């Protein structure tokens, strides 16, 4: 259960996961709660506050949040063996646990390691009602009175963003964006956001350029719910102005094949975030066997084991150094890329994700450390 059928990472994963689970013979149903515009404004504030941003949330807004959840409880026909609730929007549904029994799990996709205390305190009584909580990265959890499980997100290898592409398709995308293939290509795919440090990426690229001739592609979109993104894009364009080897591409959010092609055409893929949730763009690049240089933040260290499945960096100079290493040692870069692909194959594909969910459903209610099925 979540709050939307379309848009956002949760809906994207569920839209691919639910049919697969049903194929396995599980009577899985995806239920979406109904909410008003005002309700979603409040939950957006919750989202930001849980990420650590200070938000001004009024008492009326908290009451609205509870009221909409209560209405949903009345309208929904809740009947299942396991209730799997995603994110804070439908969190109040757990109040039905006393009446219905069964297993209740809260799947938190947000980094709640340093939340706004007021919002956290408001949600905590609901959270501890659940049998267990599920987080995407170890850093996202915090001490709780209930069991907590670690389940990383995943990518679907058959989606447009990750499936194999023909060389012709890749070439046509490069041609469309006017990117020649004459030099090694370094790419970062991410929203134009200060936290993705696109200016830092350009600075690192300029350091690399001193010794190795290459191109930089910064591809991403601007989000309507992020007023800063346009400003960041303008700054990046200004910083890149006059350098023909830097390609700043503002592309629509559903340009999956284009992103796939840009990643596959790259010599090195970057993810120089200052702060990150899980960073599935890293898994996407690793799945394409690309050598990755990424910041050691959020869920990235789970995907990039330094010097084994990619290179971790902590600053602009370190990023430039890592890129140079990969550009001048193609064998090493290939070895890292192949390791990265295997790492994703075993740990970050949707099949592993489903397996983890199933096992967690079995583990809840069984306190043993070794469960014999």
């Amino acid at each position, binding site marked *: 259960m979540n709050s939307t059928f379309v848009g956002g990472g949760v809906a994207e994963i569920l839209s691919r996961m639910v049919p697969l689970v049903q194929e396995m013979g599980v009577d899985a149903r995806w239920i979406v709660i109904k909410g008003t515009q005002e309700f979603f404004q409040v939950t957006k504030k919750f989202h930001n506050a849980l990420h650590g941003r200070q938000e001004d949330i009024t008492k009326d807004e908290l009451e609205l949040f509870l009221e909409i959840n209560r209405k949903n409880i009345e309208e929904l026909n809740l009947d299942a063996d396991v209730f799997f609730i995603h994110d804070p929007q439908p969190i109040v549904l757990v109040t039905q646990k006393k009446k219905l029994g069964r297993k209740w799990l809260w799947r938190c996709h947000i980094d709640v390691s340093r939340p706004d205390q007021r919002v956290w305190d408001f949600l905590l009584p609901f959270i501890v009602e659940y049998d267990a909580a599920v987080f995407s990265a170890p850093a996202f959890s915090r001490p709780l009175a209930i069991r907590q499980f670690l389940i990383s997100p995943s990518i679907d290898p058959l989606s447009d963003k990750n499936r194999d592409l023909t060389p012709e398709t890749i070439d046509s995308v490069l041609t469309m964006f006017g990117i020649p293939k004459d030099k090694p290509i370094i790419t970062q795919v991410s929203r134009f956001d200060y936290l993705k440090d696109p200016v830092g990426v350009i600075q690192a690229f300029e350091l690399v350029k001193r010794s190795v001739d290459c191109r930089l592609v910064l591809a991403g979109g601007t989000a309507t719910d992020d007023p800063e993104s346009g400003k960041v894009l303008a700054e990046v364009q200004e910083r890149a102005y006059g350098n023909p080897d830097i390609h700043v591409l503002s592309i629509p959010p559903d340009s999956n094949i284009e992103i796939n092609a840009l990643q596959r055409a790259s010599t090195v893929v970057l993810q120089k975030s200052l702060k990150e949730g899980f960073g599935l763009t890293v898994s996407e690049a690793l799945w394409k066997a690309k050598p990755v240089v990424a910041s050691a933040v959020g869920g990235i260290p789970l995907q990039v084991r330094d010097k*084994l499945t990619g290179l971790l960096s902590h600053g602009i100079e370190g990023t430039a150094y890592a890129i140079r290493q990969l550009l001048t040692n193609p064998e090493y870069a290939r070895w890292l890329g192949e390791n990265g692909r295997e790492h994703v194959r075993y740990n970050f594909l949707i099949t592993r994700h489903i397996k983890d969910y199933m096992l967690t459903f079995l583990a809840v209610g069984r306190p043993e450390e070794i469960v014999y099925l």
Partner: protein
Amino acid sequence: MNTVANLPQGATSGIIIPLVVFVATLIATFWLRTIGYSYAARWAKSSGWSGEQTLRAATRVPSIFWCIIVSAYLALTVSTVPAAWKGPINLTLGSVLVVSIFMAAMNMVVRLIYQHGSRLGIPRRALGTAANIVRAVVIVFMVLTVVEIWGLPFAPVLLLVVVVLLVGILLLRDVLPDVLSGLQLTSTGNVKVGDHIRLESGEEGEVIEMQLRYTRIRGADQSVAIIPSSRMVRSTIINYGPPVTRAREPFRFETRLQVTELTGLGARNLKELAEILKKSPDSVVYYHTHNFLLEHHFLFHEPANDFAAWVVDVLGDAVLGERLAAVDIFEFPNLGQLRERLVEMMEECLSTQENGRQAPPDREFYFLKSVSMVLPTSYTARNLREFLEALRKISIGSLYFHVFEARLRLGKGLNDFSTWLKDSMGEEELARKIARIDPYTYSLEGLRSLLIQFVEQRIERSSQTTSQLSAGAG
């Protein structure tokens, strides 16, 4: 009173004489039959011929018909039955004679097939099929001969037989090659029920049934492959023969999946790491000293345990990191002692420094816990050959469970393979050899290869010993 002498002349020549001839001939032929069987029995006894019983059984009933037919024929010859009747009656008698002779021949051949086929070890169902083919052929020839006796047109019957044959061949066009191959397979005796075989196409297992059309092979995962006989004949088969030793108890392979539980606890420096680790349950120690093995099993050089990796990558203490990475987990009989050793190393390091370097935000050490879900697989081994086959096919999770988890986490002190080899197979040397392997120095695939190599060597040695013993006995 009426007597024979008083009967009219017509009655004597019409009934009495043929009746007397019939009875006399019947007595004479039955006497000859008895003499013949006695003579055959004596000759068989003196010459050691074993076919006498078969011959007697095959001709016992038909020979009664022969006696009656001869007697009836002679009686008919001396009777005053009109000539117009004699022809059809003679043809009928001839037909019955032909049928009885063919029946006797058919019985004879069928009995010989069963007798000799059983001695060759051909399955009973296969012999039944062969007997039915013989019966069909004999019946066809019998019908044709009777048709010939009655002077009926031969061609339509022959055509009918040909049509039936063609339809039969068409219907059985897929089956016939298998049946013929099956006859070839069983007559050579190269493969027998109980043998462990491997086909070039990869199927491997114990032969549990052989029929003319197919052979059934049971693999280590208990799946049964049904191989058509024509494929068996065409394929290169390695026959390892029946197993030398069978296990007292079969080895049932299990596998293990993991759920990772978060403790919510994190350490920002070495002191916190040591303090939290000291109080952590075994499942936490197990997770951080073993998870990397599974998570990165595809790497040739697997990374160090989580504590060592964090101390080097985040705290930048290469010396302590090296010491923690070098801890030989294989030396520890349980997780408690391993935890003590790790904490001891950290505390030694802390004695020369204050808390040590602080980890940057988001790079704390987060304590995680391993919850193992153990479930059965379909693989079972009842002998070394099946054990080897299963080793090749089981998942990495199953291998990991029986080698790593069984020894340290379940506290058995020995891996499951060694325990089974020693206790159920009596393979003490092989069990010791496997127990001596330090699994932490291999990748999981490397470990699998090594185990396969050890078991293969053992099977090879045992085959050589068996061959030498057979040669010595010969």
